[in-house]
Every structure is written in structure tokens, then in C-alpha cells.
């Protein structure tokens, strides 16, 4: 059982506190979604969990040990971080980009070995981009790029996968594919967390939810409890109406407050 947790962690950037005393935990098999309006600190929380930004107060714990005690490479072997906007302006091939996910496992002078190649193949397959493997990433659509970046994260073969707005650039079909992939990974025993402001996708897929506003945790736990109408209306400053689809799925419809 792997666990990743923040314990009253605060994060400041450029002298401004953008995450205040957040306590969150993520463990194997869990699909956690971090929800909040723009600029609420979702991405900050993800970066804290990934060990990319260090907490000024409190701590981040990887398997109950301070994440700072691990080397950058050891953290990278366990935690994959999938950024929202991947910078891809050099014309590497898709296979080359995905193979970069093997970097934390490779020694400085070691060549790519069989397990590296297998991990890359698996990642390409799971993200349904085997047919793109020799394409240049500069020629891909936004959705294809997103899947390439997720595949790079999977190639790490991590215990934890943290995705920042993974469906933001995707069309409906590919967005659902990614969310289903996240579910499948959680079923496989990975711990998966993603940040989003798409409440309806979250309502359908995540098992637990963290609700965040202005750098403060509002609520965390079960999705029914956290995404209550009261919470949603308060945090997103809208009027929310819960309706059921013809197949019985609950969906929010939002209205601007008068």
C-alpha cells in the first residue's frame, strides 16, 4: 500500500501564500479529484504532492516519510506528474517523448533495456497512440499531445499519477477515454489524482473529491458529500440544479446568480 499525503502543507510563491495548511491523502487504488474554480490552488496542491514545489510550512509525506528525504530521481520513479500544457515545440517523435518517461530508471550511461521498451510499448497501447509512435509531436492535435504526455507519465510505471486538468484540451470522446483510463489505472492499484473544474466528469468518475477555494480546503471525502449542492454553489458562486439524465445519472446544470 503506497500513500502520498500533505500534512498541513502551505505553499508560497513570490511571497504570496497560494495554499494554506492543506491536509490531503492519496493511496493505492484511489481515484481522487481535486476540484475548484480557476486560481483556487488545484495545480498548486498537485505540485506539492508531486514534490515539485516544497511546502513552506507543514510537510508532504511519501509512504509516511518526508518527500524531501527522497532524491529527485527516487521521487520521479514513484510519482508521475502530467502537466496541463505540455511544451512540445521541438520535433521529437512520439516514441522518443514517451521513452523520456524512463529517465528516472536509467543510469547516466545505461542504454535502453527490455523493461524500458516494454514500459514504453505498454504506455503507448494504454493511451491508444501506438499508431502515432513515429509521428513528430509538433504535428499532433491538442488531444493527441495530451495522450502522449499521459503515456510518458505511464512509461515511468509510477505508484502515483497526478494529472493537471487532463481533459481540458480534449474532445468529448477522448476526454472520456482519459477518464476511463484513470479509473482503470486506479483499479490496477495505482493511486490517481487529477485536478479539474469539470464537475460532471468528476461526479461520474472520481471516488473521492477534494474541494478547494482560494488556497483553502473547503471539504474532502466522498463525492456525494463533497459535491453537495451547498458546497458547489458556495465555491463556484453559481446557482446549481441537480438533474437526472434519462439513464439516471445525476448531472449539474449551472445558472448565473441573479
Amino acid at each position: 500500500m503506497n500513500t502520498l499525503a500533505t500534512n498541513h502543507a502551505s505553499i508560497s510563491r513570490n511571497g504570496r501564500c497560494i495554499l494554506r495548511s492543506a491536509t490531503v491523502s492519496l493511496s493505492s487504488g484511489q481515484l481522487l479529484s481535486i476540484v475548484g474554480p480557476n486560481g483556487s490552488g488545484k495545480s498548486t496542491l498537485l505540485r506539492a504532492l508531486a514534490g515539485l514545489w516544497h511546502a513552506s510550512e507543514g510537510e508532504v509525506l511519501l509512504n509516511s516519510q518526508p518527500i524531501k528525504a527522497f532524491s529527485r530521481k527516487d521521487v520521479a520513479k514513484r510519482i508521475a506528474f502530467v502537466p496541463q500544457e505540455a511544451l512540445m515545440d521541438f520535433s521529437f517523435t512520439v516514441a522518443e517523448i514517451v521513452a523520456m518517461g524512463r529517465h528516472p530508471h536509467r543510469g547516466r550511461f545505461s542504454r535502453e533495456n527490455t523493461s524500458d521498451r516494454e514500459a514504453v510499448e505498454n504506455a503507448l497501447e494504454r493511451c491508444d497512440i501506438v499508431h502515432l509512435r513515429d509521428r513528430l509531436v509538433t504535428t499532433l492535435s491538442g488531444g493527441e499531445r495530451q495522450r502522449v504526455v499521459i503515456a510518458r507519465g505511464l512509461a515511468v510505471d509510477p505508484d502515483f499519477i497526478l494529472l493537471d486538468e487532463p481533459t481540458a484540451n480534449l474532445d468529448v470522446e477522448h476526454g472520456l477515454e482519459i477518464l476511463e483510463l484513470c479509473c482503470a489505472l486506479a483499479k490496477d492499484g495505482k493511486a490517481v489524482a487529477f485536478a479539474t473544474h469539470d464537475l460532471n466528469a468528476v461526479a461520474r468518475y472520481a471516488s473521492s473529491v477534494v474541494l478547494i477555494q482560494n488556497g483553502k480546503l473547503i471539504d474532502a471525502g466522498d463525492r456525494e458529500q463533497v459535491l453537495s449542492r451547498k458546497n458547489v454553489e458556495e465555491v463556484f458562486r453559481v446557482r446549481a440544479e441537480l438533474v437526472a439524465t434519462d439513464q439516471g445519472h445525476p448531472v449539474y446544470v449551472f445558472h448565473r446568480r441573479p
Partner: protein
Amino acid sequence: MSARAEIVQTSAPVVAERQRLRLGLFYVVLLPVLAISILAGIAIGSTPIPWQTILHVIGTKFFPHWVSTAGLSDSDIVIVWLIRVPRVIVAVFVGAGLATAGVIMQALFRNPLAEPGLVGAGPGAVLGAVIAFVAGWTLHSVIALPLAAIVGALLALVLVYAMATRGGTTPVATLLLAGIAVGTLLSALSSLLLSLHIVDWQIAQEIVFWMMGGLDSRTWTHFWICAPFVLLGLAAAMIQSRDLDLLQQGEETAASLGLDIESSKRLLTLTAALLTGAAVAVAGLLAFVGLVVPHAVRLVVGPSNRRLLPASALAGAAFLILCDLAARTLHPPTEIRLGVVTALIGGPIFIWLLWRRSWEAGGESGSGQ
């Protein structure tokens, strides 16, 4: 499913094959070009020397027990071994060093238009050299000038780095700005020293000539000064080639994939500064070599730095030998300054590359190749 699988099977190997083919073709073309330009660089000059004589002289130097000096005149040996060979070999290392530094900078700044002098190393080396001229050190020893240039490059880098670092992190954007600011300042100081000594035409002429870059009267000493730094720098860059690939994906991604980005950036800028310093130390300022060569080579062999670094180093060597050959032969008996030639050839190539890219992209803006 079956239709897709078919496409995968037919198209995938073709593209990978094409990539390998292009890399192979690159070396098949480049290596003979490099060999021929080395030979031409030695053969062509005010006293033309037949290639058999060149090989004979080189043979006597490398295999003195096997090849006798019979049939060679003293002047042949002097011209080939003490004048032309060192000049060409220095061109090889300077070209390779500048191109390698360019590859590092372009990856580090994630910008295909970055060039070796960006972190202050170029202007720092120039100022170091100008001080050596003005202080008269150059009269005492041949190595005073190159040493002053290398020290200048490193001091400039340290200054730029210190300016751009806050709380243990050095954002590349700040590094770039600090590099430009310090570079401009150091160039102004060089010009100030030059203008203060312009009455001493002897020194002023030397400085001006040196600022325009050149490989005239380079000796084996210059080779021994420059080559170790370039070899060391090239090896260091190759060892860090995968780190460069990662940095091209952005610092956050690089960090999330296990790269210690701050120490990596320090090591890479140091490598680039050493390469630039060593090149400027023996050849003066040479514009566009470190900018155009990696950029053009990337179009052929792709952006992977493990392939790009050695390919660019060899291409840089060939490019500089040919530029030097042009500098010596285009306007006899005067030599055109090498820095002028590299800029006159490199500039248009660069403009063509830019134009080609924007044309290919259909006017869309996009950086990187």
C-alpha cells in the same frame, strides 16, 4: 481494429527507417566534406601545395620511422606542418566547440535561436582579451590572450548566474535577460578600452582585428590551448545529452522526470561557457557559427541531442574550415576577417532557414524544429 493494425504495421517502420536513413546520409555526406575541406584548407593558399606533398609531410610527422623526409623541401614542411595544419586543426576545434555550445544553449533556453554567447561568456571572453592586449600581456606570452579570454568568459558567467539566481533557483528567462544585460555592459567596456587606446594604433589594430575574429598565424600552441577544453566540453555535453532532451520539454517536466534542474543548468551553462571561452580565446569573435550550425543540423538529424551533438560538432568544424578558406582566398593578398565571413555566410543561411520554416508552417508561428 484490423484496418488500424495494418496501417500501424505498414507506416511505423517506414518513418523510423527514414529517420535512420537521414542520419546515415548526413554522415555519408558530411565526413567526406570534412576530409576534403581539411585537405583543401591545407593545400590552398598563397603557395599552393599538391595533396601528395601534404600527405607526405603529415606521414613524416606521424610515422617518422616509416616515412622518410626525402624529396620534401624545408619550406614545404614549414608551410604544411607549422602554418596550415595548425590553422585548419584550430578551425576544426573552434567550429566544433561553438556548434556544441550552440546546441546546449538552444536546448537550455528551449529556443532554436539561442547562441553560445548568451550567458555573457562571449562578451566576457572579448573583454578578457582586450584587457590582455591593453595591459601588454600579449607581448610577453602567446598564452596570455587565450587565458585572459577563458577567465573572462567564466567570470562573466559567474556574474550573470549570480544576478539571475534568487533563493537557490535560476529561471532561464531571467538568466537570458541577465546574460543580455551583462553582455551589453561588457561589450561597452571593451569598446571603452578600445577607444581609450585608439591613439596607440598598434594595439588598437590588433584589438579590432581580433574582435572581427580570425585564424591567421595560429600555431600548435593555440591548438593545445583550445582542444582540451573543446574535447572536455563535448564529452560533458554528450554525458548530459538526455538531460538536454528533458530540459527541452520544459523545466517542470524535466524535474518531474527526475532531473535535478538547478545543478543541471549550472553544469550545462558552465560547459557552454568553457566551450565559448576556448573558441573565442583562439579565434576571436565569430558570429553565427553556434547559431546556424545546430539549427541547420537539427533539421536533418532531428532534435535528439545524443544524435545532434556529434553531428553539429562535425558540421561546425567543416563549416569553419570552409569559411576560413574563403577568408584567405576571396580577396588576395589581403585576408578577409573570419568573423566577417562567418556572418556573411551564416546570416543569409539563417534568414533562409527562418523563411523556409515560416513558409512551411503556412505563416503559423511556432518555434523549434
